[in-house]
């Protein structure tokens, strides 16, 4: 910086590009290996991109035609309407069903995952094999998408919201066991030792040493999952598992675009509302959970 300043101050040094390069060669020198690496990376990504277009048989013509159709459809979406009030009430009921599916699914998952979360935690479960099995089971359950779970449950209990509840409960079970066990493993050891020192057995250690610490954290996570479940429960209806997704896919299939736009707006409003309520609740709970952390 100082050198630069004095150079400018003298103002006799030529400032054209060539002479600047001559005076500061290091700045302008291209580092060949990194340049080659960058070229190879870009070439590889671009090549794979072109290959993918070829392999998936994506043609420009079809894309343009489709874009035309899409613009046409978007034009047909306005103004959003349900046609009749009766239909609108049907949609509202389906929306209520969607939120109810999310609520039940989250609740069931939480109730089942709570004991399993303890079984998957190092500081509670001394038997390694059991812990390992629990964790792998939750990994596998998590690896399967909610929509696939919905499809499977529809095959088992038939079409309807029950399949949706069970699908959400199953896939959340996997998520919650992982989150719960992580929260439990990071719990403070001191209350545990305190309970042990008074002669508490292992069940009492869990009940009085660990549960009070982790419960607010777990409740926050469950609420967060409820938020994300309202999003996913809007779509599981696509495979017949109840809720507003069923109507959405029906209206798209019959090309009733005004209904489609109304349904999308209803979904967005509901999701935003649930988000707002849940995140406020979560924040107030985090306030309670924050107290012991401060006194530590």
């Amino acid at each position: 910086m100082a050198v630069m300043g004095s150079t400018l101050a003298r103002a006799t040094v030529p400032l054209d590009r060539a002479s600047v390069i001559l005076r500061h060669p290091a700045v302008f020198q291209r580092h060949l290996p990194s340049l080659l690496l960058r070229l190879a990376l870009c070439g590889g990504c671009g090549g794979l991109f072109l290959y993918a277009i070829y392999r998936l048989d994506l043609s420009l013509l079809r894309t343009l035609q489709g874009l035309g159709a899409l613009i046409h459809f978007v034009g047909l979406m306005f103004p959003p309407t349900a046609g009749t009030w009766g239909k609108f009430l049907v949609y509202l009921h389906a929306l209520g069903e969607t939120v109810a599916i999310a609520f039940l699914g989250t609740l069931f998952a939480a109730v089942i995952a709570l004991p399993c979360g303890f079984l998957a935690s190092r500081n509670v479960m001394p038997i390694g094999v059991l812990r390992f099995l629990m964790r792998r089971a939750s990994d596998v359950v998590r690896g399967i998408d909610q929509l696939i779970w919905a499809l499977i449950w529809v095959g088992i209990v038939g079409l309807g919201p029950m399949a949706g509840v069970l699908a959400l409960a199953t896939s959340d079970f996997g998520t919650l066991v992982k989150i719960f066990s992580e929260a439990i493993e990071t719990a403070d050891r001191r209350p545990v030792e305190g309970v042990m020192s008074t002669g508490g057995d292992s069940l009492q250690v869990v009940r009085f040493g660990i549960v009070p610490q982790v419960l607010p954290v777990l409740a926050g996570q469950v609420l967060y999952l409820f938020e994300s479940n309202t999003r996913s429960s809007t779509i599981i209806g696509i495979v017949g598992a109840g809720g507003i997704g069923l109507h959405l896919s029906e209206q798209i299939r019959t090309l009733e675009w005004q209904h489609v736009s109304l349904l999308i707006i209803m979904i967005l409003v509901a999701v935003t509302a649930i988000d707002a309520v849940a995140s406020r609740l979560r924040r107030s709970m985090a306030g309670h959970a924050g107290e012991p952390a401060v006194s530590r």
Partner: protein
Amino acid sequence: MSSALQRLPEGQLEPLAKAYRDAVRAKRVQVELGVGLVLGLLVLSAGITQFDPLLFAANAHRFPSYFVRIFHLESGATAWSDPSEWFWGVLPEYNFRWLWSMWDTLLIAYLGTMLGTLGGFLLCFMASANLARSRAYVFVARRSLEFFRSVPEIVFAMIFVAAFGLGSLAGVLALSIHTMGALGKLFSDAVENIDMKPVDGLIATGATWWETNRYAVLPQVLPNFTSYVLWRFENNVRGASVMGLVGAGGIGQDLMEYIRKFYYSDISALLVLIVSLVVIIDILTGRLRHFLLGLQPR
């Protein structure tokens, strides 16, 4: 050293005990209210969804038996007793059918990620309050990004299937629209947190808007961007695996066919393949991210 526990005189003890009882009662009332609320909502939701516990209890045994069934071949033998029968779709005799489906799924995710990254990258500079040339740009860009990521990708996929026809194109576009929304937000958040001194420096030299972004902004945010893109690719592989459920290409198409037609052992084989694909991609992108982080301080 034995010392008897001293009991306080009644007069002193009473207010303390009362304060303790009050504190405990307040908490208990709070918990009871919470539990009551949850139970009320439970009954309400069960009513709305017509969730019949008795029906569920009567059918609950079907869940494990379904899983037992999908791990058995048509002949009744366990699936792993004859891997070539179980995983017939990966054999050369059937043209590696499932492997190609998985490869297509990966390519759909890749294309969706690339296109979405491109869109999000272009939009993020407009959606960042510290760089955009007008507040109107920021508002419009932010709201549209919000819309793109709030509508589930499978909904986009259904609409695109109607517009572009069945096939991978709809899946690619649906993933890229959603990716654009998600990455555009993350990108612009990163851009808004940069050090503004290089930007001021370049503006002082008379650089254009594009040059400023290229030489002052990009070097600061590129590492962040790369890791976001990798994270998004992971998500898109999951997303691409279900695109087939609405006819938008990938392995989901096979899976839906098998579930609908009750080809039990094929269902389990595909589930195993999908889960392993997702896990492998998670591990690989995790490795790549760490590798890139290691390269960073140059």
